[in-house]
């Protein structure tokens, strides 16, 4: 146990890729503390990825990247501009609405952040917006991708916790929209007391909204297919992801026509490579979780934590603090694979619904995407804006505060995450 955990931490801070740090630490622990045959490693690695459900991940990554290359971000920015461009501090709100829309198409926070940043930052700079706050808001809007379906993080949580992907996806919708809504409110309040730059808005016209909607409309088919297909019981999540891929292919090649068939191999290979980084972590992490489980670590932690408190409210508070700290330093997928198998049985013993618990985990980890020092969305937004992480971090309190408030509500009001799945499924 000490070997596995200690080895992992040392390797992690020494810059070894997480996928290998997990494998090496597990192998050290197996070699030093057990007599298990070494082929167990290969068997666990295979067992970790031999799953039909996980196939949804490469499909969603492909369709997300295709949409991005096909110019969906620009179209969503135009539509969002028509929707909220008349409000004070309009560009912040446009970024948030665009982030929400992209989150409904792609499952990847950093890709969404990069897409919004690329389209919005020049305009924000031109209109003399506070560029650090802009980058912070864009990072947070991008991080919505792990809460609003389809979400890679949610798929991994659902598979690890043995819950239905459909329930997890639906459970994330209300919390995701609450984060978007509270950030819009926060930005509006900030902009109202801000400088003259924020009052430079465009009038609302129905014609403009209609044009924006027609232009972005085909892209909106993707969330309709995914949510409609899963809610209607037409598809499994994997099938929905596959249909979403074909819909995206048709929309980008024949409707938007910004990419051609010749661009496909490049985009597909990028998607293969990105989704492999997720799936291979799942595979080596299954060696790691196996060895810490055989050494009784989850039971130890459970005894320790239940010794501290038998109060579910306090338990959830501890879990949230733990996940927020872990999210600051660790990448989401490996954090889920290591911690969820330990935390979920405890949560269930306190009577917490596993779907709600999964949403809490996803929300915590999406906050981890925007918190320094290791927040990938914060990193991407800062580098596109040409600002240092420390500069943008000073303005992160606004979106971070909104996300923390929603996290508290989701933690203590089960209905926020459970109402929609209970009505629709």
């Amino acid at each position, binding site marked *: 146990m000490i070997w596995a955990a200690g080895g992992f931490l040392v*390797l*992690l801070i*020494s*810059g*070894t*890729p*997480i*996928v*290998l*740090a997990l*494998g*090496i630490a597990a*192998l050290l622990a197996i070699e030093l503390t057990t007599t298990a045959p*070494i082929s*167990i490693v*290969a*068997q666990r*690695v*295979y067992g970790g*990825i*031999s*799953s*039909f459900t*996980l*196939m949804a991940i490469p*499909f969603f*990554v492909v369709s997300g990247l295709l949409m991005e290359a096909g110019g969906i971000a620009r179209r969503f920015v135009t539509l969002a501009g028509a929707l909220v461009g008349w409000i004070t501090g309009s560009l912040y709100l446009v970024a948030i609405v665009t982030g929400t829309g992209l989150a409904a198409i792609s499952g*990847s*926070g*950093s*890709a969404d952040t*990069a897409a919004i940043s690329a389209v919005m930052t020049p305009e924000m700079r031109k209109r003399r917006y506070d560029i650090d706050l802009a980058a912070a808001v864009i990072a947070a809007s991008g991080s919505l991708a*792990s809460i609003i379906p389809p979400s*890679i993080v949610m798929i*991994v949580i659902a598979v690890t916790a043995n819950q239905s992907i459909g329930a997890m996806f639906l459970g994330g919708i209300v919390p995701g929209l609450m984060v978007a809504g509270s950030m819009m409110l926060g930005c509006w309040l900030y902009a109202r007391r801000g400088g003259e730059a924020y009052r430079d808005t465009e009038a609302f016209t129905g014609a403009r909204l209609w044009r924006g909607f027609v232009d972005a409309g085909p892209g909106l088919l993707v969330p309709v297919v995914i949510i409609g297909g899963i809610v209607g019981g*037409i598809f499994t999540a994997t*099938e929905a992801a*596959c*249909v979403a891929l074909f819909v995206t292919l048709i929309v980008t090649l024949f409707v938007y026509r910004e990419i051609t068939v010749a661009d496909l*191999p*490049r985009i*597909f*290979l990028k*998607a*293969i*490579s*990105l*989704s*492999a*980084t997720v*799936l*291979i972590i799942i595979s080596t992490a299954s060696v790691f979780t196996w060895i810490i489980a055989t050494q009784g670590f989850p039971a130890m932690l459970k005894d320790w934590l239940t010794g501290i408190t038998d109060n579910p409210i306090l338990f959830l508070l501890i879990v949230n603090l733990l996940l927020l700290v872990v999210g600051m*330093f660790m*990448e989401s997928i490996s954090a889920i694979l290591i911690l969820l198998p330990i935390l979920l049985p405890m949560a269930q013993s306190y009577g917490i619904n596993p779907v709600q618990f999964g949403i809490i985990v996803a929300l915590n980890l999406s906050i981890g995407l925007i918190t320094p*020092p*290791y927040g*990938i969305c914060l*990193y*991407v937004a800062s*580098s596109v804006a040409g600002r240092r992480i420390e500069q943008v971090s000073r303005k992160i309190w606004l979106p971070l505060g909104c996300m923390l408030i929603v996290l508290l509500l989701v933690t203590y009001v089960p209905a926020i995450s459970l109402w929609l799945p209970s009505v629709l499924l």
Partner: protein
Amino acid sequence: MLGRTMTGGAGTATRSPILKAFCLGLTALRRLVDAVALLLLAYMACAILAQIVGRYFFNYSIAWSEETATFAQIWLTLLGAGIAMRHNQHVGVDVLVRKLPRPVQQACGFAGLALGAWFLATVVVGSLSMLAIGFMIKSPALRMPMAVPYMALPVGFGYFLLEFVIATIPRALRPETIGATPDETESAA
């Protein structure tokens, strides 16, 4: 990227005929891996689409599509891990190690290289005994030998090991280049 040749420390490769041959071989291997990965992805998507179409339009359940697509996914993931290594896309936390003195960074780099290679080689070796059994047991739907998906382990992890060594040696020698590549800003999650 398709046809992208040597990266990193192998830039001096053209000097020696052995290295030159190695580079040519590597480029060919990478193109082959890319092409196979693309075919696997296309197969997976088509197999699942066929399953949906079969169920709703022909009222016919295709038993083999799910199984073969899952096998394709295993191959795709394991080959993709090496492709991701080539593009430096496996996330790691290198903020702390970069603050250390250069010799310590180099030592960390080589320790990571040795340990990583040890783990990857262990999977390759361990999978060989799985493979031997895999020729005897058959898959549930198609009665295909399980060696077909198991074979992805030695092949995929072998390729991963190759790309890991190629990517890590120059980074261990010159730690100051770590984190200089734009690829690191991308993540699937």
